[in-house]
């Protein structure tokens, strides 16, 4: 999740105070990992320094968090580029899962057991996300789906790797 670009996107929707930005970020993107206030304001400072937002007003008698942030043309262009470009598809060739399996085989340790343990952990997480889907709203369900599909992809890799362990063992332990 790119926090600066996400905050910029929220500001493109409408100008906001730092407090409102944090609230909306946490509602739609936080999902159990709220954005610290310090990070909100440090990010906004950098965005202002880089000319992507400006402060439109400071309410009389209010503290520093009553600044109202407005996106600039430069900021809006950046959001537009971000939203129109695909994320770099990651080949996942050097994931932790891969490294653990190969190292286990290299060290003559039970890679099958590791894959079984990993499968159980993945399925447990999928159960938790499924419960989120069943009990939460649409936003929760769609975010849970994203996690579920990625975990499912990992599980397919675990199954395929499990079926090829003997060949992989011969490859990494010639």
């Amino acid at each position, binding site marked *: 999740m790119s926090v600066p670009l996400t905050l910029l996107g929220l500001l493109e929707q409408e100008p906001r105070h730092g407090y409102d930005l944090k609230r909306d970020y946490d509602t739609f993107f936080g999902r159990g990992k709220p954005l610290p206030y310090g990070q909100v304001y440090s990010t906004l400072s950098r965005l202002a320094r880089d000319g992507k937002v400006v402060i439109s007003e400071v309410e009389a008698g209010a503290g520093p968090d009553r600044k109202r942030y407005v996106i600039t043309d430069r900021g809006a262009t950046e959001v537009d580029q971000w939203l129109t470009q695909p994320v770099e598809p990651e080949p996942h060739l050097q994931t932790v899962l891969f490294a653990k399996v190969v190292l286990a085989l290299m060290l003559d340790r039970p890679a099958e057991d590791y894959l*079984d343990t990993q*499968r*159980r952990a*993945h*399925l447990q997480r*999928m*159960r938790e*996300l*499924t419960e989120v*889907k*069943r009990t939460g709203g649409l936003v929760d369900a769609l975010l849970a789906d994203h996690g*579920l599909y990625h*975990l*499912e992809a990992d*599980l397919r890799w675990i*199954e395929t790797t499990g*079926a090829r362990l003997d060949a992989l063992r011969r490859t990494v332990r010639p």
Partner: protein
Amino acid sequence: MTTMIEARNVEFSFGSTPALRGASLAIDAGEIVAVMGPSGSGKSTLLHCLAGILVPDAGEIHFDGARIDARSEQERSALRRERFGFVFQFGQLVPELTAAENVALPLLLGGVRRAEALRTAHGWFDRLGLAGLEHRRSGELSGGQAQRVALARGLVAGPRVLFADEPTGALDSLTGEQVMDLLVTAAREQGTTVVLVTHEPRVAAYADREVIVRDGRINAPDRVAS
């Protein structure tokens, strides 16, 4: 927690090809267990043995504290009719019957009067979002609707155990999840134990736990029956 259904060291072969090689599994009352494994691993054979459809070559099947694999075909058939419910990959609805008659079928076979059986069946249509489809035949239902009708038929008689073999295998993912959500909700409301065979992790994630069948054995060391 009471064990509802259990396989003890079950072996089964199709001719000279072994499908189960000492499979053991204990499932508690009210539990929803996903049976997973690669194609040909023996997971459907295990379901058929647990349900009394197949008789193991060796080992035992226990249901609600009593051994059932040694019973006659007639007794096992009665057990399946009265205590078990089934949902398969393809709904296998009777095409000549209406959706409501299909749902009522287990009740009619159990001796319930037709009017009462149909009244009970109609209650399931609202519950599963099928209201208005009671009089359609299976050819007039979408895949998801037909599978929900099959689910209602599997649960209408209040079975102690529901056996579901790839119940979403013929559905797209969104429809499949709707069916799974309904299955889990209805089973929990009725306290029905569910044995769910699936190769799809996202379907298995609706269960309380999973067991993996591999080469005719079960990989669930923490819950294998003693």
